[in-house]
């Protein structure tokens, strides 16, 4: 359209027009309290946690007002972080926790994918009516409270009265001590940790399964049909078409699964309490015990910051690795 253009109001003029003032007021009055509230409960605690890490703090001791720092809760500078490399018992437990957390998450991720992706593909491939039923069943564990899961599986794993050993013995094998035997292991990983992984996979698989099913549903049929026309069999179809098209979802799932694995607390605390011999002591358990049982909140704060850093790093690395610009 040719002709004279009406002069556009500049940004300031726009902002202060009557109409926009109403809107700005709305945004300000609604958003500000909300954002402040969120800040108060997320960013303020992070700042507080960072400060805690520089003190030797116990809630049972009375420090100097107003926040309890100082006094009986002395400032120790970088001591908490330095001690992480040292020989104190809690430092050893910290390193054990770090190792166990990494092992746990690293094992959980591929195993979870190996279970959920084939299941999703299988469910996608069958008749729609039965699909809902299967999906319903597979999602049941995920909605069960963690305490319930831990108690049921603790009982399942019981060496003398549990179902798992019962089944093993019924087929002629010899029962194992799943949760309290520090000698047992497989591929260098303690049996107790494998047992926890087993429980966790059972509990958590529903989540990723649902996401993959939805992702598969949104892949246009044309891709699959095109590949089939080109002569691809089921296996090739799976690897060369389905998986690559799932990449965006895969990124999301991988990041989320690892972050969740890093933060698994409930089932471990209830089933093994970190044992045997700290073989299942993960960082979150270490933090909890130090903060709320052994009165070492400053130390626990420092460890929690290390956990935070780990999560950020893992998220960043995975985003880089799995980034894709595929669109369809």
């Amino acid at each position, binding site marked *: 359209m040719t002709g004279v253009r009406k002069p556009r109001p500049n940004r300031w003029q726009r902002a202060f027009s009557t109409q926009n003032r109403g809107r700005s007021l709305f945004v300000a009055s609604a958003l500000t309290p909300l954002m402040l509230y969120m800040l108060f409960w997320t960013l303020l605690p992070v700042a507080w946690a960072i400060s805690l890490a520089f003190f030797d703090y116990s809630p049972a001791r*009375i420090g100097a007002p107003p926040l309890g720092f100082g006094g009986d809760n002395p400032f120790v500078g970088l001591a908490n972080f330095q001690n992480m490399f040292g020989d*104190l018992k809690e430092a050893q437990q910290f390193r054990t926790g770090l190792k166990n957390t990494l092992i746990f998450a690293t094992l959980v991720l591929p195993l979870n994918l190996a279970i959920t992706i084939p299941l999703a593909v299988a469910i996608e491939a069958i008749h729609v009516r039965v699909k809902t039923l299967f999906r319903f069943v597979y999602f049941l564990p995920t909605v069960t409270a963690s305490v319930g899961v831990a108690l049921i599986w603790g009982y399942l794993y019981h060496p003398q009265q549990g179902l798992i050993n019962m089944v093993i013995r019924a087929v002629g094998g010899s029962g194992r*001590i799943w949760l*309290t035997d520090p000698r047992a292991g497989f591929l260098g990983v303690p049996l107790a940790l494998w047992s926890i992984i087993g429980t966790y996979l059972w509990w958590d698989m529903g989540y990723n399964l649902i996401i993959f099913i939805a992702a598969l549903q949104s892949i246009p049929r044309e891709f699959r049909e095109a590949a089939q026309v080109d002569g691809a069999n089921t296996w090739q179809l799976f690897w060369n078409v389905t998986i690559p098209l799932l990449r965006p979802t895969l990124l999301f799932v991988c990041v989320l699964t690892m972050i969740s694995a890093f933060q698994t607390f409930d089932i471990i605390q209830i089933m093994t309490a970190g044992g045997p*011999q700290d073989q299942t002591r993960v960082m979150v358990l270490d933090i909890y015990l130090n903060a709320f049982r052994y009165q070492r909140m400053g130390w626990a704060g420092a460890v929690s910051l290390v956990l935070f850093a780990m999560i950020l790093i893992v998220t960043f690395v995975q985003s880089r690795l799995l980034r894709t610009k595929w669109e369809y």
Partner: protein
Amino acid sequence: MNRKKFWILAAALTILTLLTAQCTPSPQAPVAQPAAQEAAPGEEQIELRMWTHQNSSFIAANEIIIERFEKEHPNVNITIESFPYDVFIQTLQTSMPAGTEADIIEMFGSWVCRYADRLAEVPDFVMTYSEAAELFFKAPLDGYYCDGKLYGLPNEFNIENGAVMINKALFEEAGLPYPPAWKNTQDLLANAQKLVKTDGDMMSVAGYHFISGDGLTFQLLAGILQRGGEYWKPDGSGLVFTTPEAKATLEDMKSWVTEYKVTDPFLFNRDSNWVGNSFFVNQAGIGFIGPWIVPEARRQFPEIEFDYVPLPNYAGEKHLFAADAGWGKVVSANSKHQEMAQEYVKFATANQENALTWNVATGTIPALKSVAADPKILEEAPWFEASLKVLDDGRYVGPLPDRDLFWNEIVYPHMLAVFQESETVDEALQAIETESNAMFKP
């Protein structure tokens, strides 16, 4: 549109209902409370809260004492709340800074000094330390004495040493004399070996279940003391475990597992088939645990027949041992009714009749000397006999900075590792020494 409104309305109504539900008195009645008595004219009605850990005998015992107290003080009403043991520790720590803890707390003596900041001193007019020392055994009392100040009074002489439980049915099944007359540890072990049962590949009944959690530390310290050793440094600034006596004790205990094979350290320990449960379902012939388990066990497992018999000395003539300061009463510094709370503490611990009732009901050995000497206590709790005999040989374990840490995270794991053969005796003792000394701040 309608649906949206409906949901919002429903939510609002539900919240409103629940809010009002919160205001109505809760349907629970954990305490058999006598009808709140009328306060005498001129006196104010005082409400006190008391915390204890979840053990039905303890709760029942405290309720009896509370009833007696309320009769003498009609204007006072005391409510009990109880917590599972592991939760109790955490609850104390999270509630004290917030000021939500109870007025009176039944606390474990060895913890008291860690919470001293938040507790109220026992005023002199209630009792001074020297007065208390006359009335109570030193071992339990000293746990409540921190930095020259007294913070509470004990009810229990916590003792696990000196006696063990034996299961009548299992003994008779194995054809062993009941009660046994062991002259030394070898005799005990010989009996224990005959009590072991296996089911296929796993031990189903332990002969001598001594890996009981708390018990391991008690046995270690007793072994050291009886062999003439000492675990405190001479200047009291730390602990020492790399002594010949400690080594001899731990090696002896290890042989019970590896040579005598009286128990399986993987199946029978603190976290797996804990003796407090497994003994009473016939999974252990001999069990190492204190007499405080008895009333609770009698309640849950009434069919089991068992007894306490004296444990032979590990070495030497006297059954020396180190004891925790057991359960007792302390008052919170945040309490709004200090005087009345302290009154209760004295009433519950230093009064002969009350202390005796409490000890019998809970199955704990008395901390009050006069009660221990009272013939009535053996009438009511004959299984105390073996433990009462050794009371004079006991001493307070000492002012550990963190008893819980020492017992649970330092000594128990390393001793268990020795029995499970993932650490040598020397390694374990060295580690115990290093880690416990790290508790002492310079």
